[in-house]
């Protein structure tokens, strides 16, 4: 049971990451490979605030969201006029640089040693120390993020984003400043990733740079491609499948390091097969 709760919490965290990345990639067509940066900023800011300044989790969470959104604003302001593959490589480069900062800025992040002993959340004397209350908190935050996402996708703002994805030149002819729209959605997407970061730091109670590398960004991207770009529910479904899958492999009886690699094989194959036979993913509306 405890084990199932653990998996469920991870699904919530990756669900938040998937939904938030889908806003940028699926809704607005910004193929970003830097989502782990905002996730990492959220995790580090929340962890440092809770440990060094003894800030309550919920306030740390808010500040983490602000910090992630701010970093997303900087990245978006620099990259928003790059196109296609150039955007992909620029964002990938940004992830590499941010990872170097996490790894080498020893005074703040303690580098590869990581930050241990991050506390679990507390609110008015009620502790989320046990996994079950923590799951309820994670699920609540996931639901909140889900609501934000569906609100955005059903608003006129969301429709402009879709139009940018389909044909940016056309929509700019109608007088929409597309770069502002792209910047806005990237900030929202990054800020929501900060929620996942703060949750992750508090749940595992330990963070180190390895959780926020380019590979993590690629993994989150795989989640939403599998689920289907442009679909909030698809992002959730993708997170569920890609998190639960390696656990299933472990039950089949692979040793855990082989199971980890098997997961890579399976999700790599999924990406290839999807691109060959169903490029829009499982629930996707956006045909790449």
């Amino acid at each position, binding site marked *: 049971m405890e084990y199932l709760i653990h998996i469920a919490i991870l699904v919530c965290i990756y669900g938040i990451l998937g939904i938030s990345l889908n806003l940028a990639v699926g809704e607005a067509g910004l193929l970003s490979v830097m989502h782990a940066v905002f996730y990492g900023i959220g995790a580090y800011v929340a962890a440092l605030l809770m440990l060094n300044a003894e800030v309550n989790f919920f306030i740390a969470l808010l500040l983490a969201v602000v910090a992630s959104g701010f970093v997303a604003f900087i990245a978006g302001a620099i990259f928003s006029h790059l196109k296609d593959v150039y955007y992909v490589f620029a964002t990938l480069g940004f992830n590499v640089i941010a990872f*170097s900062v996490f790894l*080498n800025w020893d005074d703040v992040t303690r580098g590869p040693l990581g930050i241990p002993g991050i506390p679990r959340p507390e609110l008015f004397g009620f502790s989320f120390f046990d996994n079950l209350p923590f799951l309820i908190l994670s699920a609540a935050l996931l639901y909140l993020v889900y609501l934000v996402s569906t609100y955005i996708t059903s608003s006129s703002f969301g429709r402009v984003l879709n139009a940018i994805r389909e044909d940016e030149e056309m929509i700019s002819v109608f007088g929409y400043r597309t770069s502002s729209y792209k910047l806005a959605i990237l900030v929202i997407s990054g800020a929501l990733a900060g929620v996942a970061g703060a949750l992750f730091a508090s749940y595992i109670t330990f963070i180190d740079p390895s959780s926020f590398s380019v590979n993590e960004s690629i993994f989150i991207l795989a989640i939403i491609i599998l689920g289907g770009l442009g679909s909030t529910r698809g992002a959730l479904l993708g997170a569920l499948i890609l998190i639960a899958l390696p656990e299933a492999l472990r039950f089949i009886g692979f040793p855990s390091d082989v199971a980890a*690699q098997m997961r890579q094989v399976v999700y790599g194959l999924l990406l290839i097969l999807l691109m060959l036979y169903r490029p829009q993913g499982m629930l996707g509306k956006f045909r790449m």
Partner: protein
Amino acid sequence: MDIAVQITLNAIIAGALYALAALGFNLVYSTTRFFDLGYGAYAAVGAYMVFWLYKGLELSLVPSILLGIIAAGVIGFLIETVVYRPLRARKASLTVFLIASLGVLTVIQAVIAIVFSSQFQTLSRNIGEIQTYTLWGGVITQTQVLILAAGLLIMTVLGFTLRYTMFGKAVRAVADDSEVATIVGINSNRIIGIIFFVSSMIAGLAGIAVGFDTGIQPTMGLALLLKGVIAAIIGGLGNVYGGVLGAFLLAAIENAGAWQFAGEWKDAIAFAILILFLLYRPQGLWPK
């Protein structure tokens, strides 16, 4: 003074490795116009093939290397036939190609890790016995001299073949417009297949060179590929000589930067250069 010499030598060696990566990558990019991330995996295949033959089966050096290069070429060719050719026939978008190639990279890396473990390993049998030369106070190994020679040789042969032979003309025709090339009687698929075979062999050679110079790891390919991509973008995408010059320039800046700051910022410096180029000079220094 000695340090300056050593850094120059290091830069030249790193430049030769990046140049190999950029050469093969440029070849594929200029004919097919897409970014093949799988390219990194072909490099790892070459290196691990040599590891298996040379250290596992104790074959002698030259046949091991030749077989390793051929294995990389065959893998590249197979991937082209099975994955990219159907996508090309369907006129899939660049994003679809990019994600499919990401899948290719992930699968091959994970399979290598399952077979050979994900540990860092060395290719050389007798590390102590490697011949070294002293040059104006700096040290350079025999392996490194060979890498440098191989890089320059391949650049010359490639440049010559593309410019002066019928095959080179056919390649350039396919690169310009594969449909028109087909109309005038060129078998585009065959040409692209050969290009994939050759460029994957170059990738394999680059991987083997890295393996003998430092060591091998299943994930070695991505790092090498990214440096090759940065070099190719600096030099001007699709320009054979530009890519090589870009590679040496990148290596020089990286090593100078590592000397001025600290070695661990090398990757961050490389990607900062990439972002600067993408923003201010996306056509590179020597555009085609």
